């Protein structure tokens, strides 16, 4: 493919240069998080690597990051579990069945991919109070329901396209044997569309874990996730880069590990969005 040696060197040189520049921000936060404050204040690129420490992580953990992380976990697992379950059920209907207002419903679902969250945010707090979702542990349920509603467009868009790719013959054969739709869903649609469902689940996990706006607006302080925690710690007047950077690393790691382990599914999901969208 590559015409000649000189061009090959230029190509790989250029790509590698860009890749290195692209990783500099990651190196920055990593180095600041493992250096004592006086070292990173003198330029992390000058640092004495003998001074590396894990103290910042311990400090961050004790300054509230631990409970932020727990809240993030609860919110993310609850939201994604709910979205994937109700989303997969609805996707089966959108991919395989006819019903009234199907196109209109689909259109409305898809608008969530376009409008800003702010279009629902402002009356949501009074609405939560009306529904009894504004305080205590119920806040977790409240925000999970909003994440499900706002993620519904992506959920149906992605999962129904994977279910629709399953050959009709499989469903027809099972129907002849008298299977109900619930059996078709559980024995054929879910197992065969599983890669697509996993792809969506990963994208949704990363999306919900990384949400700032909904959590910032809807949750009381002791229920807030790590993104809000980071924004709280970030105040420029506090000058605590050591703690903030360690908190940032802890916020980044879970989605990053998921990406490293399941890269294939993540890329495939976004591929599907890009090519079919």
């Amino acid at each position, binding site marked *: 493919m590559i015409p000649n040696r000189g061009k090959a060197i230029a190509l790989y040189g250029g*790509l590698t240069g*860009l890749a290195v520049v692209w990783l500099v921000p990651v190196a920055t936060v990593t180095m600041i998080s493992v250096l004592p404050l006086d070292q990173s204040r003198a330029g992390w690129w000058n640092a004495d690597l003998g001074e590396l420490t894990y103290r910042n992580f311990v400090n961050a953990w004790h300054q509230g990051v631990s409970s932020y992380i727990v809240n993030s976990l609860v919110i993310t697992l609850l939201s994604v579990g709910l979205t994937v379950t109700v989303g997969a059920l609805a996707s089966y209907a959108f991919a395989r069945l006819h019903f009234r207002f199907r196109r209109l419903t689909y259109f409305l679902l898809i608008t969530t991919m376009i409008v800003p969250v702010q279009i629902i945010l*402002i009356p949501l707090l009074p609405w939560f109070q009306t529904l009894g979702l504004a305080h205590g542990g119920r806040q977790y349920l409240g925000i999970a329901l909003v994440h499900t509603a706002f993620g519904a467009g992506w959920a149906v868009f992605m999962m129904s396209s994977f279910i629709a790719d399953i050959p009709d013959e499989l469903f027809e054969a099972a129907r002849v044997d008298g299977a109900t739709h619930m059996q078709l869903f559980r024995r054929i649609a879910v197992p065969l569309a599983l890669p697509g469902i996993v792809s969506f689940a990963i994208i949704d996990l990363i999306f919900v874990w990384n949400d700032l706006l909904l959590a910032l*607006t809807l949750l009381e302080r002791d229920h807030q996730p790590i993104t809000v925690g980071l924004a709280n710690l970030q105040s420029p007047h506090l000058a605590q880069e050591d703690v903030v950077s360690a908190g*940032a690393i802890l916020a980044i790691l879970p989605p990053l590990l998921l990406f490293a382990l399941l890269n294939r599914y993540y890329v495939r999901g976004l591929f599907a969005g890009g090519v079919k*969208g």
Partner: protein
Amino acid sequence: MRETTATRVAPARAGSRRRRVVGGRDLAAYLFVLPLTAIFALFYLWPAVSTILSSFFSWGLLQPWRLTEPDSWDFVGLGNYQDALSDPDFWSAAVNTAIWLVVFPALVTGFALLVSILIWYAGRGAGLYRSVFILPMTISLTAAGVIWSFIYNPDPSIGLLNAVTGLLGLGDTHLWLSDLGSIHVGGIELRLVNLSLVVAAFWAFAGFGVITFTAGLASVSQELVEAARVDGARVSQIVRYVLLPALRRPLIVVVVVSVIFALRVFDIVFVMTQGGPVQDTMVLALLLWQDAFAFLDTPSAGLAAAIAVLLSATLVLGAYPYLRQLTRSGSRR
């Protein structure tokens, strides 16, 4: 499948026939969509309708507007919209949002195009390079904002960027997040400090373009390119006549999605500058949030709702062809 059968049996009455054939299945379909649509209606549709309705009233979160409590109604008609459109803060935020709208999609698209074509040519190691450029996509915009605040730190012994510009002889005292000067275009002042935020968001988001373009290029036949090369085509010609045509649809997707991103941008501005100094980096999505939530005792939630409606209407109208296309591709089956 179902539809072709119905058409074959009774072409003239396919419509009515299909409805009757499907009639027996209706109940199952409704049960399958019910949980999702119930949640969707309660936590998206109704709040969105409330936002629109409440934008015609004056209210604040301490005295919330409720449809069921006429006591809470302080009807002002289009007053909130007039207030928004006559407020200099609104227009200043609109100008900054316009900077995002132009620069962000251009950066994302141009860079992702370049990188994807380079990766496509490289072949070997493509997966690794692609992963590097996708990696920041998994990082929250909040964390990206924190990271870039380190890089932009004005003190050249803390902030990497000033250290580098100092080394290059370009000065090491730039105020990347507070003052970079401005340029005037047609009497409108464009503050360059917004670009610092755009670059941070661009770093976090460009991977989406790389993924999408890589998917588009996967369909280009290597033999075709090889044949063109043997016939003496230059790289620029191959890019122009073979690769770019294959990227037509992915290009539309990346431009549309990054335009949507730019108009909705909130997190990274909130974390890095809170819209400051003064209002220099304020964007519409943050302005309306502050109107509604930063000062709870002022009754400006109606004003915030009006801005939210204006912003959403712009997005839905602007992206309508894209929405239609998504709906069609989704209802094809």
